[in-house]
């Protein structure tokens, strides 16, 4: 069974590029530009890893983290962000984020992090 990855970022290019690389690795990938439709989708199906941007219009990344952890405690959440503040990083770690990448993101590093995250969900 393929592992399912969800990517939430209001920059369309982030989801599009990550999807190409991740599908190449055999993952099933769904991308979203906003948290609302993403969370709606999460309520329908479980994902193994959720990669989310921190600061988005409407619901932000920290709220996504909280909701995902409530729904599926086993799902790992990875955060990426253009706004790399120390306070925010601390909040994210306290909220049980699996990994944290400030932008610009190295896709290879994101792939490695995701592969470690899914290893934990076996």
């Amino acid at each position, binding site marked *: 069974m393929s592992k399912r990855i969800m990517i939430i970022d209001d*920059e369309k*290019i*982030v989801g599009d590029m990550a999807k*190409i*690389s991740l599908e*190449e690795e055999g993952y099933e990938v769904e991308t979203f530009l906003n948290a609302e439709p993403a969370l709606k989708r999460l309520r329908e199906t479980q994902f193994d890893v959720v990669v989310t941007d921190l600061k988005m219009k409407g619901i932000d990344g920290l709220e996504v983290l909280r909701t995902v952890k409530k729904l599926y405690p086993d799902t790992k959440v990875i955060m990426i962000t*253009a*706004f790399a503040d120390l306070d925010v990083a601390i909040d994210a770690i306290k909220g049980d984020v699996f990994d944290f990448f400030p932008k*610009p993101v190295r896709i290879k590093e994101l792939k490695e992090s995701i592969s470690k995250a899914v290893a934990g969900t076996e």
Partner: protein
Amino acid sequence: MFLLFVAVLVAALIASRSVSRKILGPIKQIERLAKSISAGNFKKIETPIPKDEFGQVINAINSMSEELEQREEELIQSKKLASIGVLVAGVAHELNNPVNNISMIAQTYDDMYEKLSVEQRIEFMRRIDQESERIKQIVNSLLDFARPKEPKLREIDINSLILKSLVLVQNTLNVSSIETRLDLAENLPPLFVDENQIQQVFVNLFLNAAQAMAIEGRLFVSSRLTEKEDVVEIAIRDTGKGIPPEYLPHVFDPFFSTKEEGGTGLGLSVSYSIIKNHDGHVRVESRPGIGTTFTIQLPVTQTRKETNEQTDHDH
């Protein structure tokens, strides 16, 4: 007897003049200095300082003046630095997104070159180009904000400029089915403005209005001459979600954004600077859930003749 009387009178007159000089003189000096310090001119009394109680007061005020001047300079400097701090952080964050986009496209192009179709590769390059444009706009906004260009003044009809600016945003308005209602006064005097800069301001405000309204909002634009006939007032009103009262004083701050809009967050700050540079005013009023109105005031320049003389002088 009479002579004695006259002698006493003369002595009294001489004495009173000396009293005047010794007491009223310094009092007047101190009064003038106090007024000048209140107006922000931190002068001091330099004339020979008398060695009496007045001298003490004058010394005290002189040293107060010096301290006040120093404190004001420090305050201005620290406000400048804080302002620059906000600006720099804002720009850095804004740039991160397009830079990351370019980076991720380049990495994918590199890693997956063989597996990509020709169309995909071309598409990637096109998107990199778009993101570069985005960076260019952020940088330009920043420069606009940092060094507002000296306005190149020309006599224009403000109503024509309003209409011209509306044409530029027509597509955006149509996409959201926004209806525009105009109430432009006839026979407005011509204004001396930098046409490009004022157009930039109008476009910025129209786009902000469009973004504040979801679908089928209404945009009202009006122009009129004030009663005193020295100012033309242009009002731009939308029926959008409005701005909460606690945010209103910050609307023109650089990068003050509710992140609900796209754009660089500098648009309103730059608009504000442009209007100020034209000796005008801009203010905002808003009611959440009802709408927002931006009102611009631009001065009507006195006489054509005066301005022509001024322009010749500048050359």
